[in-house]
């Protein structure tokens, strides 16, 4: 009986260690803020996403409303397509909304900022639905390009 108990505990110990390894290896955390039913997906095509990564936040006016779910390169147009999962509490964005890859702080992480567009009540503006695409996008600022532009402008003066 005593031996049985020891066997079970050692088994538990090994399983616990393997679970720790698994957590370290995959580091998947359940993102319960945005699970299946309470979210919808949007797409946006950027010319350049800079250092944007999957799971980066999507913000409207600084408030986190969703996460970047997937980043793929469109094989035909060679343009990165960013798929975002947005909390369905924030549905009803106008299709004139724009998205930009922004940086929090000088050295901070990059995120997607969405600026809500206008809704023309008389003409009837379409709203962004699940799977919809934001057309008006602004790429990430690439620091090197910025500097070279600055130097170029200096030379022209």
């Amino acid at each position: 009986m005593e031996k049985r108990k020891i066997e079970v505990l050692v088994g538990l110990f090994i399983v616990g260690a393997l679970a720790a390894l698994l957590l370290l290896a995959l580091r998947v955390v359940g993102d319960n803020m945005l699970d299946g039913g309470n979210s919808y997906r949007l797409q946006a095509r950027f010319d350049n996403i800079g250092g944007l990564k999957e799971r980066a936040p999507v913000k409207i006016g600084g408030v986190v409303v969703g996460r970047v779910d997937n980043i793929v390169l469109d094989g035909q147009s060679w343009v990165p397509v960013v798929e975002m999962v947005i909390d369905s509490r924030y549905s009803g964005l106008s299709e004139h909304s724009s998205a930009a890859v922004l940086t929090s702080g000088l050295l901070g992480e990059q995120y997607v900022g969405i600026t809500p567009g206008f809704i023309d009540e008389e003409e009837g503006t379409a709203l962004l639905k699940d799977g919809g695409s934001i057309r008006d996008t602004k790429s990430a600022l690439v620091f090197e390009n910025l500097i070279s532009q600055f130097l170029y402008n200096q030379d022209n003066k």
Partner: protein
Amino acid sequence: MVEFLARNGRATLNHLAEAGRAGTLLFRVILGGYRLRRDWSLLLKQLYMVGVLSVAIIVVSGLFIGMVLALQGYNVLVDYGAEESLGPLVALSLLRELGPVVTALLFAGRAGSSLTAEIGLMKATEQLSSLEMMAVDPLKRVIAPRFWAGVICMPLLALMFNAVGILGGFLVGVEWLGVDQGSYWSIMQAAVDWQDDLLNGVIKSVVFALVVTWIAVFKGFDAVPTAEGVSRATTETVVHSSLAVLALDFVLTAVMFG
């Protein structure tokens, strides 16, 4: 003058002899034909004594170390608006250094000392010589299971320590201080590399496991068979293995990340 030289020479010779005995012990334990299958129950008991009973201290320490890292790191990072980098800070410090090293130090205190005391007391009460009288090799029967149990358990304990520490950092950083949770994990994932960080950390803890367990079983086996000798051997186990771990950590870090 001659007496002074002789004293020094004697001390040196004693140390060398001790090193030789330790080397022989390690050699005989590793190449001694220890059969895992036949002696499974002996190993199992030691896995329980050395591993399972150490889980509590490892998990609690890991949690607190992770939480302190997050708290201290946050205070510095927030000045530069870089508190999103808390994830990699916590994960890299734990995986590369604190996980293997602190686990080894705790392990030396928790399990190493008890190994030494147990084996030393067996020697003092002549249980080891009785085994030899019965033609049972104490190295195979007593030392080898304890040695292998230590070597197996410590890397596993270090993995637990790391995982719990990262969760502790998550608790403080994200739940309490309000770092964005997506950033915590995603920047961590971007910064942590399989081979550079996780694998090197595991290699470190395997090396520490070998050294700490080796010192522990050798000090017990080599103890002067008196109450005082066992007490001295236990102290030496903790002191020597802690020093060895810290010194080796520097060397390994220089080789791996230098």
